[in-house]
């Protein structure tokens, strides 16, 4: 653990030129969505930055977030960022296993108490004492609470850690919750997405390294630089939405012409993420560019928001059946009331006294 070494020293040792470093900082500024002129400020700050210890805990998750990060599109820049942190525990990536792995975590937590960065992916099950997910015989809840105590900040990676994600979807059999539902006294940044964009994960890490603090966050704890706008706002198909030109099926004329996918269930208008500009697979494309609507994976409860293929303007639940039942009930009630009216009328007619000439004669 060479945590005392600055990045500049490390890069020098590796024979990385200053020019390469500047190029790296330009890429970082782009990645962090900062003004490009900040590259020199980043360079100055990073040169002096020390490597922070990072502990990565994986709970109820599918390892998709780690896959996303390790398949990051810029391996060299990527490895440079990873060189800048000291990843002391990550049970998928680390070489050690079993007791040795758990020991590494304990040691890092002790040595850098109050200073380490805690990364979490996956949700935490609370039902039945949290027995549904355990590591080395300890529940996720127990492990998170212990690790959170000494963390300088927590990064919730992926929608499961950030909002509960898939495990939290109805009927939530394990009682899964997000990190922020458990930890209340530590700064938390949510990097949502299923999986999150790798550049966003590394961008937040780089921001923390550069400025020593977490970036500005929105009301859901997500970095504004990446989640400040909706997919819809930055979508290249937006002009078609404004013109009311929609693809109706995945293979019609509209779909071939690249029209808006709103009516095929695109959740772009209600989804905040950077896919439309950062893109995926080395900047190749993003879902809408390959002809499929956004499924809204970086928003809370996206699994419970109805079908991925139901337009936002259509109901997220079965309304047709409700309407049919209601119509029958309404008609039944009307018939019953009508019958009641008839009975009342007959009774009134029967009880009515007939008017005679004598009655009219009265004084």
């Amino acid at each position, binding site marked *: 653990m060479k945590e005392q070494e600055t990045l500049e020293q490390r890069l020098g040792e590796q024979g990385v030129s200053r*020019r390469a470093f*500047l190029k790296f900082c*330009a890429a970082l500024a782009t990645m962090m*969505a900062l003004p490009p002129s900040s590259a020199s400020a980043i360079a100055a700050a990073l040169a002096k930055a020390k490597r922070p210890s990072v502990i990565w805990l994986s709970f109820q998750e599918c390892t998709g977030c780690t896959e996303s990060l390790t398949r990051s599109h810029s391996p060299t820049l990527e490895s*440079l960022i990873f060189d800048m942190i000291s990843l002391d525990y990550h049970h998928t990536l680390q070489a050690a296993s079993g007791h040795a792995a758990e020991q590494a975590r304990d040691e890092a937590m002790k040595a850098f108490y109050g200073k380490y960065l805690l990364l979490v992916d996956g949700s935490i099950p609370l039902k039945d004492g949290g027995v549904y997910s355990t590591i080395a015989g300890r529940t996720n809840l127990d492990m998170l609470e212990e690790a959170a105590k000494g963390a300088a900040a927590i990064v919730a990676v992926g929608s499961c850690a950030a909002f509960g994600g898939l495990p939290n979807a109805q009927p939530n059999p394990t009682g899964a919750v997000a990190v922020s539902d458990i930890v209340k006294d530590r700064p938390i940044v949510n990097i949502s997405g299923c999986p999150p964009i790798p550049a966003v994960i590394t961008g937040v890490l780089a921001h923390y390294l550069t400025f020593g603090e977490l970036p500005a966050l929105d009301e859901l704890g997500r970095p504004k630089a990446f989640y400040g706008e909706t997919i819809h706002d930055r979508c290249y198909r937006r*002009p078609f939405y404004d013109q009311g030109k929609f693809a109706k099926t995945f293979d019609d004329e509209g779909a071939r012409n690249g029209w808006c996918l709103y009516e095929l269930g695109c959740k772009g208008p209600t989804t905040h993420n950077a896919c439309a500009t950062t893109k995926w697979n080395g900047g190749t494309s993003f879902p809408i560019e390959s002809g499929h609507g956004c499924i809204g994976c970086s928003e809370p409860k996206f699994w419970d928001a109805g079908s991925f293929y139901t337009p936002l303007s259509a109901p997220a639940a079965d309304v047709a059946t409700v309407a049919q039942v209601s119509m029958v009930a309404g008609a039944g009630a009307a018939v019953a009331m009508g019958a009641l009216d008839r009975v009342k009328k007959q009774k009134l007619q029967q009880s009515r006294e007939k008017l005679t000439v004598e009655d009219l004669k009265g004084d």
Partner: protein
Amino acid sequence: MSLQDIHIKVADAHSVGNVEAILNEIATRLDDFVNTSETGLIDLKSLPFSTDEYERLRAMLGRGEVTARLNSIGESEIYETHFPGVWWVTHYNVEGDIVADLIEIASVPAILQSQWEDVRTGLGRLRQTLTSVRGEPVEP
């Protein structure tokens, strides 16, 4: 069926309206540069472009006299556009993906200038080379 029987439909050039916006931005920055010699940078990756719009911007800016290639953690292509002082800087990683795509307003892009740290280490190396050529110790 021959090749002519396959109808190819050319999609309309759909504008997100960013080409004009960027050209305006470049003009403003260039004006600043002329008057105050303040350099400027525009990040092209943060803007939504359709593919044809991106190509349109490239075509409208054109190519000037200077093209440079940088080989450092992947390639970088730097060229002056048809408008002197307006440079197009594209950084690639080793796999050839674009990691930064910038328009730089300057007489020479910062990345092309020799860096003092590199110059200093370079001087050290040169002296070492001289030493080995002459076979005598380096002056401190």
